[in-house]
């Protein structure tokens, strides 16, 4: 994606910048409006949880798989959480097949940290035999159609798949885990929402489209829990923010998160 800068025409770039001066956006949205959100959950039956999220034209999927594994030695009493995201070429001519690059890795690590810091999953309930056997929760996220702001779409898909996901009930028989017929919801404590705000010249815009991303100077992602605490921050892009901009962006993010939260699927159980 190193040649993203060549992707949109100078005319379009100018149009975006001219409109922004008047606090307008090329798709008619206000600066702090996000695109239409649609969330479909439990759609792939081999997954313990799944979600397809549409954020405007951006479409992504997330799937949750669970398996029984061994805990890390330094956290013997909590489950294991793995987040993986891959920018597959299906979703954009800018993405290439191959092992995850730095963009894929950043996206998955920001989602991972947001879920972890918010303590979304009640990790202690995932320990089956402390020190020996725990649930490992794998969250895999893929774009299907990339039209900007994968960060927030990925976060929303991961969170939606977890919220509506199920695990087999277990029974412990000495050192063996027996999976029972019944399924119970993945234990959930909190729900983080990811809000990315772009900076173009001195304007802050919510939920940038692909074309806006092409002219952005920098981006800031705030992860917000249901108590309006910040449980994750990630700045990216080749410019900086003033502290005032960052505080303003934080306030916008808190407001936007509250609105997005209404789209969430109902928590199971």
């Amino acid at each position, binding site marked *: 994606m190193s040649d993203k800068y060549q992707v949109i025409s100078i005319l379009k770039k100018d149009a975006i910048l001219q409109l922004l001066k008047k606090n307008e956006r090329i798709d008619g949205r206000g600066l702090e409006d996000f695109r239409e959100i649609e969330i479909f959950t439990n759609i*792939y039956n*081999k997954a313990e949880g799944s979600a397809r999220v549409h954020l405007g034209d951006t479409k992504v999927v997330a*799937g949750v798989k*669970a398996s029984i594994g061994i805990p890390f030695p330094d956290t013997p009493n909590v489950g294991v959480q793995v987040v*993986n995201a891959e920018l*597959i070429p299906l*979703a954009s001519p800018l993405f290439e097949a191959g092992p995850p690059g730095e963009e894929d890795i950043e996206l998955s690590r920001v989602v991972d940290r947001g879920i972890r810091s918010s303590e979304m999953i009640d990790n202690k309930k995932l320990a089956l035999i402390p020190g020996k056997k725990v649930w490992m929760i794998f969250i895999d996220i*893929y774009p299907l*159609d990339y*039209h900007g702001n994968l960060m927030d779409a990925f976060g929303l898909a991961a969170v939606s798949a977890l919220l509506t996901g199920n695990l087999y009930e277990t029974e412990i028989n000495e050192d063996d885990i027996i999976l029972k017929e019944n399924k119970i919801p993945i234990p959930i404590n909190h729900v983080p929402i990811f809000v990315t705000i772009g900076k173009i010249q001195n304007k802050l815009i919510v939920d940038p489209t692909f074309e806006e991303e092409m002219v952005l100077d920098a981006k800031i992602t705030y992860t917000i829990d249901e108590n309006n605490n910040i449980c994750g921050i990630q700045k990216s892009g080749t410019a900086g923010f003033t502290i005032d901009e960052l505080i303003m962006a934080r306030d916008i993010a808190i407001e936007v998160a509250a609105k997005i939260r209404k789209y969430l699927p109902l928590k199971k159980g």
Partner: protein
Amino acid sequence: MKKVSNITEVIKLLDENGIRSDGRRLDEMRKIKIEVGVLKNADGSAYIEMGNNKIIVGVYGPKEVRPKHLAIPYKSLIRCRYEMMPFSVSDRKSPSPSRREIELSKAIREALEPAIFTEEFPRTMIEIFIEVLEADGGTRTASINAASVALADAGIPLRDLVTAIAIGKIDGKLALDINGIEDQYGDGDMPIAMMPQLGYVTLFQADGIFTSEEIEKAFEMAKKAIWNIYEIQKKALKSKYLQIVKEVDINE
């Protein structure tokens, strides 16, 4: 993650009335749903549900070949990548390409290429990206059904659509369109792809054991099913075209 059944329990794939574990007759296909033009970035795309299989396909091209030295002077280079998402199967699949995925990418590409007028676009490439969202036996044939529709949706001139179905063998009998359990516990799997109008078989594989007669019978079963699927493919393409016409009407 799938609950492992008691392994002493025998898996019964066919009951005394010749009915399969999912209620189908031996010559009965699973439900198929195809949607066309489901992606905006891809030049052509399709989504298929074939039983529980859920697969999305995007096609890009004809476009410039990268790296350039791979360009073929007299035809278009066809690339195909078949991938199962980690959550599409019972035990999470590692995200890196498996040997199975690499082989199937080649087999599917060679099933589709015979239908493409590759010689009309020399020095270009056409890329076919197949993502399996949920797998339940027969993903390669479902992928081919969706991919040939996606190629048509991309406006790439085709000799014919490519249409595919698998014949399996369960409890010693041939069975149309086997599902995951039938594939796992059955006696054989024989996926077949054809260009129905032209009568060419473009994918033909098998594992398990088949007699000479079974192969001939399998072709008969497959042909019938393939004509049915072919209609569904064409209807899917037409419905998108009709929709476009309607949109134009509205806009006038």
